């Protein structure tokens, strides 16, 4: 089973790569959104899944990437690639600046500190003239869905490879040690603050590129869409549903949930958002280690697995 996973993942990636040539326009557009969301979930996984630090503010890096790209392309007529780089630098700086003070906080303190981040950043950007204040920016039009699709796919692949590396490296072991017992990790020589901040910065890179791609694709940026707090909801839920701290869990989780969301949203949009909330509540109760853990158990999984999970944690 374990040996099959990697070749299987490569096959899926290849199959996804040829989709724009055979699929319909709507399918490609759905694909772009799903791939970008999977990237967000995967990059949230770096600090949230491996390091055990729940951030409800990663959408800020998405917004910084969005605005960095948009400002570079509209105000300075720079090419898209340069815009992406500027967005990434902006997000990395933001992650380091924000991370250094608040990542010294532990557990719930950190989580709640990130809760206010999105609102604060939105307030700042809606007052910046260079970012078009409240009105936003209009980017040059580029009608090439296939290109955006391949870019998004490439980004997800690179992000997943990075997570794969993390899961097998000394660095990742350090993060996991922090998740399991931060004091013990410190004793073993892990510089917890450095590890956590670098994890946040790493996550901010992929998140910012996803934002930049989305900005150029949708050709319009404003504070409400760039600093969309529901993005936090979605990336956290997709990662937790799929399996935090696993390599392919977040990707599987976000593909499954994106598909379900798309089907539901066609009927009633609020019901789709409601479903996300139920998913996270039920996931925490019944499968706290995510979908990946359920799949790993293979055929041995039965209702007993879920009962056992509850028995472990109930009062």
């Amino acid at each position: 089973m374990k040996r099959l996973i990697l070749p299987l993942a490569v096959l899926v990636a290849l199959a996804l790569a040829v989709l724009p040539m055979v699929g319909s326009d709507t399918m490609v557009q759905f694909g772009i959104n799903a791939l970008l969301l999977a990237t967000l979930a995967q990059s949230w996984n770096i600090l949230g899944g491996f390091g055990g630090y729940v951030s409800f503010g990663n959408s800020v890096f998405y917004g910084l990437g969005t605005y960095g790209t948009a400002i570079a392309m509209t105000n300075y007529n720079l090419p898209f690639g340069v815009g992406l780089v500027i967005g990434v630098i902006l997000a990395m700086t933001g992650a380091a600046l924000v991370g250094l003070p608040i990542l010294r906080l532990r557990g719930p303190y950190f989580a709640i500190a990130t809760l206010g981040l999105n609102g604060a950043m939105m307030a700042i950007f809606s007052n910046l003239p260079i970012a078009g204040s409240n009105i936003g920016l209009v980017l040059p039009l580029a009608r090439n869905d296939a290109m955006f699709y391949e870019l998004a796919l490439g980004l997800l692949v690179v992000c997943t490879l990075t997570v794969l590396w993390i899961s097998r490296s000394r660095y990742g072991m350090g993060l996991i040690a922090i998740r399991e017992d931060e004091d013990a990790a410190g004793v073993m020589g892990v510089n917890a603050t450095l590890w956590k901040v670098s994890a946040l910065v790493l996550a901010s890179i992929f998140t910012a590129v996803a934002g930049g791609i989305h900005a150029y694709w949708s050709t319009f940026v404003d504070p409400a869409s760039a600093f969309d707090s529901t993005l936090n909801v979605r990336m956290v839920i997709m990662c937790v549903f799929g399996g935090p701290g696993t390599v392919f869990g977040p990707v599987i989780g976000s593909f499954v949930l994106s598909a379900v969301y798309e089907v539901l949203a066609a009927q009633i949009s609020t019901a789709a958002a409601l479903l996300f909330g139920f998913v996270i509540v039920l996931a925490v109760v019944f499968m706290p280690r995510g979908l990946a853990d359920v799949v790993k158990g293979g055929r041995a999984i039965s209702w007993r697995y879920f009962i056992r999970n509850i028995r472990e944690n109930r009062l």
Partner: protein
Amino acid sequence: MVLAQILLNGILLGGLYGLMALGMALVWGVLNIVNLSHGALIMLGGYTVYYLFTLAGIDPFVALPIAMVVMFAAGFALQWGLLNLVVRSKMLNTLLITFGLDVVLTFAAQLVFTADFRTINPSYAGANFPVLGLTVPVVRLAAFCVAVALAAGVWFLLNRMPLGRAIRATAQNLTAARLYGVNPRKLYAITFGIGAALAGAAGGLYGMISNLTPYMGASLTAKSFVIAIIGGLANPFNVILGGIFVGIAESLTALYIGPTYTDVISFGLLVVVLVVRPKRAVRAA
């Protein structure tokens, strides 16, 4: 003169903020759950009072205790049926589940109540009276008084009643409390219920001063958290003081820097407080 008026507004609003944080501090201190759906519970309390007022014509201040009873029942059921299932697992999991609850409550509210702004608007909503050249809005003053009265009630409950002793004992040592005959499942549910009832009262008062929307929860959760940390989890009156501190800071920001920056300030305050004195929040109710 303007400054004095702003300070007065900040203090009156701050009392209400303190009430918002009181329920969160109680649940946090006793159950060790940082309830991210606390803001959503405030929102639900607000809507309960709103509908009691508009549909049944009950005066908002009379509707407040009714809303508190309703929210107590809701909170009790939530803890009994759901949160007790995960309360022993890692903090990450309780954070996530209350976050999920927040999403559920927010969008259920959007579905049921629609996304329109609502205000609880009794005939005396705009009434005010002058004191020493300052204008004192009646509703805000009443909200402040209710907040202080409820804080006193919580203090009395915790320090002078058998139930309060059981709650404090459980917060200190669950196993020992169990040996002395405390039923933790029930006690946790009651405590969460009280927290929800306090949130409900805060929501009703907030609806008279500001607007109700299904999405108001998230920022109020963050605000309550800041205040709970500033005030500590030990004494209800300190929580009210923490609320007043944040209320004044917000009013001054709105005056000197601009109203759009109040969110930035409460976030900055949060970071500063967390970094400077994170050990303040001790587990004891």
